[in-house]
């Protein structure tokens, strides 16, 4: 028996994943948005939460989001292998097996929901379970490959975390948490469609209907404008609830004006104009959309931080003597 046969033979044919490959199954980049919005939902809620419980809640929401990512990779392994962007994911690159992703996804789903139930009660746990089900089954298995509105539906799953954070603190659903959900939900389509206008995707080769390909780029521009118009009242409306204030409203006014002006510009121009300047306007709108959500939730966080001093309305009126 040679050294070579002793060392290699038992390991041939089966991928051996490292811990980093399992972590990659959880879509860590998506998780950052989930963690941030969930944290904001938890912090802005009117009921204070013990810091350790808050940590556990955010951890469970992050792990639940990661679990749905693993289930998504398990189901979509066939199309991930076709598309350039997803070709290096753990399953198509052969680092993990589809069975590993399924097992990890199911185990972490169970873990996150049960621990969230123990930490924060049935409503938050139920919402997290529904989010995982929605993303893995409704979006990934059912609608992603059957409708060009898939981005809209997928966006709903990404919009739940602040609502879960709020429910974990208050045990309730309120207008504030519904509007935080609506903000992320309405933001997702124009954000992704602006990207789709200037990045050449291969979703078509994988059989995933994208609006740019099924309805054309003209229609995509119309959709971007329509969703941005619908987004504005949601974003501004949040400013008049108990978690809003003048700082949030100022930030929202500037950002929504920018976003709306960009969407209007995209609507007005055609492909010839876009190609002429290398999709400059489309890239600009996408860039605005990147900061849009982060700054809105960041402003809510600032409003919550000022609450011990009476809130930003009171601070401003004290400063200006109103």
């Amino acid at each position, binding site marked *: 028996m040679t050294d070579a046969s002793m060392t290699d033979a038992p390991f041939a044919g089966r991928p*051996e994943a*490292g811990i980093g490959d399992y972590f990659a199954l959880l879509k860590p980049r998506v998780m950052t948005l989930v963690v941030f919005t969930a944290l904001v939902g938890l912090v802005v809620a009117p009921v204070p939460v013990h810091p350790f419980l808050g940590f*556990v809640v955010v951890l469970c929401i992050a792990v639940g989001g990661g679990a749905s990512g693993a289930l998504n990779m398990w189901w979509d392994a066939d199309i991930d292998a076709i598309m350039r962007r997803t070709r290096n994911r753990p399953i198509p690159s052969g680092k993990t097996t589809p069975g590993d992703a399924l097992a990890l996804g199911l185990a972490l789903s169970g873990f996150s929901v049960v*621990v969230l139930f123990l*930490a924060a009660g049935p409503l938050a746990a139920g919402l997290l379970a529904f989010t995982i089900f929605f993303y893995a089954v409704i979006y990934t298995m059912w609608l992603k490959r059957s409708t060009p509105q898939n981005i809209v539906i997928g966006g709903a799953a990404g919009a739940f975390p602040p609502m879960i954070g709020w429910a974990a603190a208050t045990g309730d659903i309120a207008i504030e948490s519904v509007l935080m959900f609506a903000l992320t939900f309405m933001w997702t389509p124009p954000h992704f469609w602006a990207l789709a206008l200037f990045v050449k995707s291969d979703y078509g080769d994988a059989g995933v209907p994208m609006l740019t390909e099924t309805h054309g780029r003209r229609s995509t521009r119309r959709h971007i404008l329509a969703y941005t118009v619908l987004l504005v009242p949601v974003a501004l409306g949040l400013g008049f609830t108990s978690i809003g204030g003048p700082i949030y409203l100022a930030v929202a006014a500037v950002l929504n004006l920018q976003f709306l002006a960009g969407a209007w510009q995209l609507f007005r121009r055609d492909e010839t104009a876009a190609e002429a300047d290398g999709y400059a306007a489309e890239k600009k709108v996408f860039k605005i959309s990147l900061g849009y959500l982060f700054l809105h939730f960041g402003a809510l966080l600032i409003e919550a931080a000022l609450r011990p001093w009476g809130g930003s309305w009171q601070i401003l009126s004290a400063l200006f003597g109103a």
Partner: protein
Amino acid sequence: MTMQVEHELHHRRKGRNFGVGLLLVAFVGLIFGLTVVKTLNLGDIVDLERADRAFQPAETGTGADQ
């Protein structure tokens, strides 16, 4: 004859096992912390019970007599 099986895969497995071990320890810590926090919060319930008994002393007495 000593048999030595050296493979890159063993290093990867070692890393994975170490990672799983750390995760299990973190899980134990998480549940322990959760238990401590939840138990400390029970203090409120004890206070509530005391207040309730202070307001209704006769009820407990009557129950014992019967």
